[in-house]
């Protein structure tokens, strides 16, 4: 049984990390990061089987790929707090000579990152490749991917979605961050995604929803169900219904904070809504 108090404390601390990272450099993407905080915390601390030491090959462990790389603040915070690198390094987010580039990359050798992402739509393909190699290596572990909903407007995703179903890549769980927002506004206004569940199903995926995508218990139980669906011939898609900017009242339910940092006063307000739990970096 998961220690939800500890996970909740971690969620609040990660929110603080996200806000402080983007505030310091006055750039970055807090909205999507906050919306996926509970998912990342649950994934890295409750769901994935992970080896003690990071290796690029990740043999004998579950892998995670972030396709929508702009939500790097949440990825970096959760990786640091899971022990991949010192939490103090979050101080270097987006600074010159940092391993914490604006978008995640392997280029500077940051432990925990296995592919560069930022230019959207490439993560599912990469994850399929890693999943195929796991099969060739007779490694029974799972490959997890997170992509944005707006990101599914990129055509490469649908090549990948077609391939994975057509080739029974069933050791793959793709989670879609369904927050309905993108830079220019609501996805339904920018380019409607239609019925994603029906679309994934029509391509041959096993699809499920997690309606409470910002609720730790719902995420953990939902993702465990998703894991049970693996190994049965179909790739698995989880539609994670989230609220962009979750946990900071003035950032919620809007695309305004997709790629904008809070000013000093806004930071103070946001942090006051998320008092320190584990300690700031």
């Amino acid at each position, binding site marked *: 049984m998961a220690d939800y108090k500890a996970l909740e404390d971690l969620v609040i601390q990660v929110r603080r990390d996200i806000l402080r990272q983007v505030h310091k450099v006055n750039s970055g993407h807090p909205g999507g990061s906050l919306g996926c905080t509970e998912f990342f915390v649950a994934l890295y601390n409750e769901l994935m089987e992970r080896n003690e030491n990071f290796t690029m090959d990740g043999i004998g462990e579950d892998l995670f790929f972030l396709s929508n790389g702009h939500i790097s603040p949440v990825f970096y915070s959760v990786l640091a707090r899971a022990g991949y690198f010192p939490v103090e390094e979050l101080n270097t987010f987006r600074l010159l000579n940092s391993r914490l580039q604006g978008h995640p990359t392997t280029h500077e050798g940051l432990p925990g990152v296995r*592919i*560069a992402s930022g230019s959207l739509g490439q993560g599912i393909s*990469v994850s399929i*490749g*890693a999943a195929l190699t*796991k099969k060739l290596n007779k490694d029974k572990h799972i490959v997890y991917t997170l992509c944005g909903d707006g990101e599914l407007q990129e055509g490469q995703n649908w*090549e*990948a979605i077609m*391939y994975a179903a057509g080739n029974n890549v069933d050791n793959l769980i793709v989670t879609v961050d369904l927050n309905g927002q993108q830079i220019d506004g609501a996805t339904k206004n920018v380019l409607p995604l239609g019925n994603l569940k029906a679309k994934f199903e029509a391509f041959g995926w096993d699809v499920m929803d997690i309606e409470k995508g910002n609720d730790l218990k719902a995420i953990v139980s939902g993702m465990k169900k998703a894991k049970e669906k693996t190994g049965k011939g179909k790739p698995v898609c989880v539609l994670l219904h989230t609220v962009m900017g979750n946990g900071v009242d003035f950032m919620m339910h809007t695309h305004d904070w997709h790629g904008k940092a809070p000013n000093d006063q806004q930071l103070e307000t946001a942090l006051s809504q998320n008092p320190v739990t584990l300690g700031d970096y």
Partner: protein
Amino acid sequence: MKIVQMKKYTDTGKKDTRSGFGDGLTELGKKNKDVVALCADLTGSLKMDEFKENHPERFFQVGIAEANMIGIAAGMTIGGKIPFTGTFANFSTGRVYDQIRQSVAYSGKNVKICASHAGITLGEDGATHQILEDIGLMKMLPGMTVINTCDYNQTKAATIAIADYEGPVYLRFGRPKVANFTPADQNFQIGKAVQLQEGTDVTIIATGHLVWEALQAAETLNEKGITADVINIHTIKPLDDEAILKSVKKTGCVVTAEEHNFLGGLGESVARVLASYHPAPQEFVATQDTFGESGTPEQLMDKYGLNASAIVSAVQKVTARK
């Protein structure tokens, strides 16, 4: 007039370079269990059938979806596989530039992008399929090795050699049957130029299908009393600066020859070396910032000035500029 004794190169029978790739891949399949192959609905054209037949579990048909193929290949390296992707050069580069840039080159993945039907000698299909910009696209990517082989034997040797090299590689070859004249047992060294002829009047630096043409040109020139260093640059990046400079310091002028646009190709890479270390007159045998068109490979090479006679003319021009 001096006429010197030249090294003799024999065409052992015309063969396509893509078959060199296919046969190299077949050999790799037998000796390296980590080699996997991906193809975007052109298995026969890329000569990948034998690998597919021998190792169905290591062959991945991705359909007409090149972007996904590059992404999958990048992902497959995680866990130790060595993916070889196969499609036409146009669809291996221009169509998937961003996927190669981010998921392969910037991510430093050990993917071998193997591209057939490069250049104008693809022939009758016309300009939509005849990419003349791919060397430029690929050489601009940091960390990308760019190889353009000249015949069947060299393509086979290069295919085998790149599996042992850790890092992204673009391997460019073609469709037509051309002279096969390099040794079957050659030791292919990435980044190492091959000196084919020794001369003192001009340096001819050629890559791909133009290497054989350069040898023919050198013979013609010899009869006219002009002796040429002929250098086969199979690796455009990293470029063998040392071999180029050594030769040009001796001859004082250069002709570069390639089946590619003069913008972004081998010629520009050579010009960079000369401008930096040893300025010298240079002429470019290459397409002149134009698209191709339908025709037979021979007709096209003639019309676009990519053959031995074009090289001879360029040499006469460049030697006059010394």
